[in-house]
């Protein structure tokens, strides 16, 4: 019997509505209407909190690209939040207010740093890679502390948010929220296209079995490097947003424990799933906020929670939903 090529074979692997998909849709819908809720109840704090959630979710989405899909566990990802933020802050201090200059600069600077770190680190793997990215992040942290002109350890206040020639007034909190929301949706969409493209398959294959990938002819290093740069650039944009959000930037943003927070968000949500980092970011930041209202010592609870997740939870929250084991 001769079998003929049936393109609909691929339909089998298309995702259908799953508990995971339903959760993601719910979260996105809730986030979309949050400003309405905030306006109706006058709860400005909720708006501020969730803007932060959106921004850090972008950071988590970018980390998930290299970590969840690419298997590159970077413990230095908060560095890009800092670089992006400082790009905005430094340019603002030097008189360049235009977002049209600041935001591309944030992205470019982050991409450049990611390139350098990637070239030096990606030849290693496993725990070496984790430690090296950690060390490089710490390095840029110290550089920022040494920048006396830009506030050093105390940080730098940004008096004017990024200006967009009157098109967008970022001082309007609701508008700013929706800008962040739109960018989050864009980053999710970009990642979803990347991971199903030729490039994405190479990255995912390299995560699964790099030796095998090279054996079939892929020069994996260059693909991983490009992926690393893309993730850095995306996180740099998140940094620019964060600087606008808080009108402030300081080295503390780049401390390695902030990189740890990002890792937690990605793992909590479920590694290597598209909406996982979003869900992880929401859960983590709400947990953090909730615990700090509950007690003066929130980490006494958060710490052990993380430990328990590390010991028992396979595949984060999404894995729990599906009841299935992930690597």
């Amino acid at each position: 019997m001769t079998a003929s090529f049936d393109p609909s074979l691929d339909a089998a692997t298309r995702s259908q509505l799953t508990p995971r998909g339903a959760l993601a849709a719910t979260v996105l819908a809730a986030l979309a209407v949050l400003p309405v809720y905030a306006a109706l109840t006058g709860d400005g704090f909720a708006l501020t909190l969730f803007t932060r959630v959106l921004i850090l979710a972008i950071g988590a989405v970018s980390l998930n690209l290299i970590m969840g899909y690419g298997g590159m566990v970077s413990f230095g990802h908060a560095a890009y939040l800092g670089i992006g933020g400082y790009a905005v802050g430094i340019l603002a201090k030097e008189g360049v207010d235009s977002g049209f200059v600041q935001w591309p600069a944030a992205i470019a600077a982050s991409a450049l740093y990611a390139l350098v770190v990637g070239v030096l680190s990606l030849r290693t793997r496993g725990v070496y890679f984790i430690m090296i990215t950690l060390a490089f992040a710490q390095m840029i942290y110290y550089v920022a502390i040494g920048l006396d002109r830009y506030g050093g350890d105390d940080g730098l206040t940004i008096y004017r948010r990024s200006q967009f020639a009157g098109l967008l007034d970022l001082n309007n909190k609701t508008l700013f929220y929706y800008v962040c929301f739109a960018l989050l949706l864009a980053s999710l969409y970009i990642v979803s296209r990347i991971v199903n493209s030729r490039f994405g398959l190479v990255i995912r294959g390299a995560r699964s079995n790099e030796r095998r990938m090279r054996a079939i002819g892929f020069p994996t290093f260059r693909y991983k490097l490009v992926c690393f740069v893309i993730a850095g650039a995306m996180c740099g944009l998140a940094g620019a947003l964060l600087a606008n959000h808080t009108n402030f930037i300081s080295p503390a943003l780049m401390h390695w424990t902030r990189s740890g927070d990002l890792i937690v968000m990605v793992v909590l949500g479920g590694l290597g799933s598209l909406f996982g980092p979003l869900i992880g970011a929401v859960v983590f930041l709400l947990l953090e906020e909730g615990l700090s209202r509950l007690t003066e010592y929130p980490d006494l609870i958060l710490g052990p929670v993380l430990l328990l997740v590390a010991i028992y939870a396979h595949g984060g929250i999404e894995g729990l939903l599906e009841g299935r084991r992930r690597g």
Partner: protein
Amino acid sequence: MLYFVEQCLNGVQLGMLLFLLAAGLTLVFGIMDLVNLAHGSLYMLGAYFAATFAVLTGSFVIAIIMAVAASLVAGMVLETVAIRRLYSRNHLDHVLGTFGLLLFFNELVRLIWGPAGMTLSLPPEMLTAVQIIPGVYYPIYRLVIILAALAIAALLYVLVMRTRLGMLIRAGAANRQMVAALGVNIELLYTFVFGLGAALAGFAGVMQAPILTVQIGMGENILILAFVVIIIGGIGSIRGAFVAAVMVGLIDTVGRSFLPDMLHRVLSTNAAATLGPALSSMSIYMLMAAVLVFRPEGLFPVAGR
């Protein structure tokens, strides 16, 4: 010139502290394959224990002994309660779990001892400077740190190279499964190794307390340096940790002291003022980057890994 010698000694002293930390870290990673971000917390606990015991007993020496013992116990308890459940998980889970522990301990210390930090004062005789070579004066206490760490390094050497336990440790660093298959009580070995690492970290924390700091989060910064040390030295190798620690200590200290000056001679004042501190803190990482490029397995890699 004399200043240079003094800075070199300071560099060696920092290197000794780093060695104590790195030795524990590299043993735990080499034998249990565990990445432990909470290692700095044990260092911090050692310092806090010492400061507390010094207040309680009034004696500096007794405080040291008690603090190290307390660190050993704390380490073994931690291993039994929490750490051992992580062994079967992958490195990312180690990072996540020990990160949680790190947060927990920082908060715990804040709860018990308050946010302000503590001080540990030395008996005044310790602070006097002695002349070690003609013209060079160096505080006794810093010499004590160097000598104590060297003594411990020697003891570790004897332990690892000359005892049966040490043989098990070396074998475990090279081939974990084999040691377990030989019927050795692996659980006890692991608890001991972790406790040993904790005691070493605690001792480092104790020794630096009078001259550096006793405060929350003090473990984090030095922990990263310790990781850099074990990457340069080679994971699992104590000898590598020793050599790399001295290198890192020297480069960091001498770099911070002299690099800004050197830059001032070459660059404009403004540039030097900005670049100086930044570059000197970067010098370690540049060394690490160089090692990664030319010899990624470290200077003294453990055979069989």
